[in-house]
């Protein structure tokens, strides 16, 4: 493996390579970006590149150092992961102890903190001094999904590197690689669903999507029968399987498509549903759809909570829409 295998993150790699070329590699980096953007893999490649014996911009993968790092048993390249739920204070203390003295081979030590947000504030604070003024040449790479989830004092000591989320089209290709055929692969690309959790084939997904489209028609027209749909077998089955989020995601994507069709900006990649989209778009407006989407988003968030019953949440959602109730973000209970 080398940098070249991660083409999606061209900008990141360019940035890291320029830093190496100009001999301006900082001692703290914060890699952040959504899941599936190869943050950890690129961090390891970076560790290889700065220590590669052939000193190339792209790791050679042939020298002993590269090989050792690749196989994960290089003594000076450490990956720290949450031990259980959290990265423990003990782990950081050990790390500091280990890094106190210069490494034997005179190389730059690398520590990669995966899921660096899974750290208590106390632990994060332990990092502060260590990050700011390392005693021996070293490089710390913190990896997280949300930049803001890292304490500000730690962030201010690192260079933040943003990993770009693949575009919907690229994600659609990934779904296709997982065996989901068009047009459903593009629909799924827009959802925040994960490969592992989805155990359905394209036909089943499309069937559900069509159901959702029918349902959305009832919702948009505020028809009282919308609540009956929840009792239909396909809906109940998904509730049983705890996959209500899939319905809500589909609904959101469909409404977005309709609202875009209403102002003549239909997404070409959804051409398969164009007819239904435009017919529904005629009977509603963009702002009405936006209101609905907002309700869907709130419900989507609530559904993820284990203590609440999905069935009643969905019913409440339908009733709120029928009553044209204002969307209430405070229900989510964060500041």
């Amino acid at each position, binding site marked *: 493996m080398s940098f070249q295998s991660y083409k999606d993150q061209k900008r990141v790699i360019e940035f890291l390579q*320029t830093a190496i070329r100009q001999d301006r590699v900082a001692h703290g980096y914060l890699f952040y970006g959504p899941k599936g953007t190869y943050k950890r893999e690129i961090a390891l490649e970076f560790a290889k590149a700065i220590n590669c014996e052939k000193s190339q911009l792209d790791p050679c993968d042939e020298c002993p150092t590269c090989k050792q790092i690749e196989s994960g048993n290089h003594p000076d390249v450490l990956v720290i992961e949450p031990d259980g739920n959290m990265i423990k204070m003990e782990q950081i203390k050990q790390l500091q102890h280990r890094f106190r003295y210069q490494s034997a081979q005179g190389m730059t030590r690398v520590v990669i903190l995966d899921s660096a947000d899974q750290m208590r504030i106390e632990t994060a604070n332990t990092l502060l001094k260590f990050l700011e003024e390392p005693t021996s040449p070293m490089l710390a790479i913190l990896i997280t999904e949300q930049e803001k989830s890292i304490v500000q004092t730690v962030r201010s*000591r690192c260079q933040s590197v943003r990993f770009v989320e693949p575009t919907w089209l690229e994600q659609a290709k990934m779904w296709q690689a997982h065996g989901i055929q068009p047009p459903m692969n593009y629909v799924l690309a827009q959802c925040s669903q994960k490969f592992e959790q989805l155990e359905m084939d394209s036909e089943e997904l499309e069937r559900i999507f069509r159901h959702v489209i029918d349902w959305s028609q009832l919702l948009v027209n505020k028809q009282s029968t919308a609540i009956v749909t929840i009792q239909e077998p396909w809906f109940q089955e998904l509730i049983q399987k705890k996959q209500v989020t899939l319905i809500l995601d589909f609904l*959101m994507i469909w409404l977005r498509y309709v609202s875009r069709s209403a102002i003549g900006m239909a997404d070409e990649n959804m051409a398969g549903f164009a007819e239904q989209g435009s017919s529904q778009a005629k009977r*509603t407006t963009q702002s009405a759809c936006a209101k609905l989407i907002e309700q869907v*988003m709130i419900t989507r968030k609530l559904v993820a909570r284990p203590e609440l019953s999905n069935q009643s949440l969905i019913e409440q959602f339908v009733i709120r829409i029928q009553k044209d109730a204002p969307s209430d973000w405070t229900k*989510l209970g964060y500041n």
Partner: protein
Amino acid sequence: MSYRALYRVWRSQRFEDLVGQEHVTRTLQNAIMEQQLSHAYLFSGPRGTGKTSAAKIFAKAVNCENGPAAEPCNQCEMCRQITDGSSMDVFEMDAASNRGVDEIRDLRDKVKYAPTEARYKVYIIDEVHMLTTEAFNALLKTLEEPPPHVIFILATTEPHKLLPTIISRCQRFSFRRISFEVIVKRLQLICDTNQIRYEDQALFTLARTADGGMRDALSLLDQTIAFGGEDLTEEVVRLVLGIVSKEMMYQLVHGIHEQDPSLILQLLDQLSAEGNEPDRILYDLVYTCRDLLLIQTAPKVAKLQGAEQNGPTEELAKKVTTARLQAILDSLLQDQPHLKHVSNPRIFLEMSLLRAMNEGASSDRDTGSSSQEIQLLHQKIEQLEKIVDRLVRPSDDQAQVIVNRDSSSIEVAPRKSPPRSSIQRGKKLSSQLLAKTSPKALQKIQQSWGDILHKVRNERVTVHAWLVNGEPVAATDQVVILAFKTEIHCETTERQPNRGIIEQVISQILQHTYQIQTVMWSDWELVQPEEEQKSSSEMVEDRVVSKRQEESPNQMDSVRDSSIVDQAITIFGKDLVQIKKD
């Protein structure tokens, strides 16, 4: 030695380097000069404001061999030892890693011994808020009455986490966030020294992102230099920080102002394709709006804050009213906290901007309702003036009469609307009115047609039931043409008070008075080919022709012609009638 980060290379070594904290440095310097040292200091303030640096400089200043002086010499053995951290008498303690009671006990035991070389033993306890309560309490006694040769300096970003008993034993200094201008100046100095060419705007952007932290600013500078080399342009800064380009932002604001949903969505699509994060886009948009507000209300401050005041900015600032900007900003700020929590931020962002677009407008509506009424009155007056004009002018030829009748059917139609036959309607459509229709006006109607239907339904359900069968097919600035499939729907919609209700709703929603004109689909399809022609390049020509016709008595014939044709079609059916012109 491997590469060292800029913020370490440029760590302040003298009080005068400690920019932006003059209130602290002067007090400390005076204390040293007057020999009135306290035994415990507490430095608090946000990250990157110079707390640790100040503590180190202070330690040097009191221990300097050429001192004690207001500034450390940084030359003597003592100063150098302290700078590289090898002094036996200045301890820098990381309280976050050594937070237990054992470490503090250890410290307490060693405090007793006199310094080896320096005048004072200085304990710098960094991140002191991380000490456990037990450790704090163990420290209390020592902190209150340490031996005379000891100075404690506690540094923290979160002073509120300290026990009040600790705070009351220290002299407290609050470090301020470093102001925008000071950061910019410092960055300029560093760039000049490192021989890096820079654009002012690039430094402004960096300083703004740093948000009051000097270390953040230098980190970011480091990062941009690492990416872009010796040339520091705004482009590079934007790339590294993932900031959306100014032009895009102005276009977005423009789109919101103009209430053009398709422009907004197009821009957002483009931004997403370029890999911009939704929260970053929203953040930048908020800042752009704020800049525009600043330019409008306090141009001087705007300049100091680095808000660009070039052509497009000024133009935009002039176009959008302050109230509107505030409304947009308000709406965006309300949505900002939610963005982090939703599962699909991109869709949320789209929605949020579209809502900002509408909400801004509604606030305009609230404040500007009187001006809207005035506008309505203006229109009415204009119409009346026209009529008066025509009445006053002697109507000497026939054509005048026709024009008169024609325009009255367009403009004053609602007052006298007897049921007409479809033939008459066809005639009306084929005249002047069609020349005025424009696809743009139609689009405007179509976009809000759903809203109109909804509102009509709220007003009166029966009217909605009639209206729902119609569809807007063409529109001018004053008239909307609705096509119906069945006669009864068509007629009933046309009748008062139904017509009045519909027109009223349309004017409420679109802020413009329209009159509705009903037509049968079959009739509409007849005139449509003509209509399509008009939208092509012939349109101008066509209009010229129709004008000429108005002036000449020929018009009469053409009108009669078409009505005859219409009649023929209704009698014999479309398929059997052939139109021949001579």
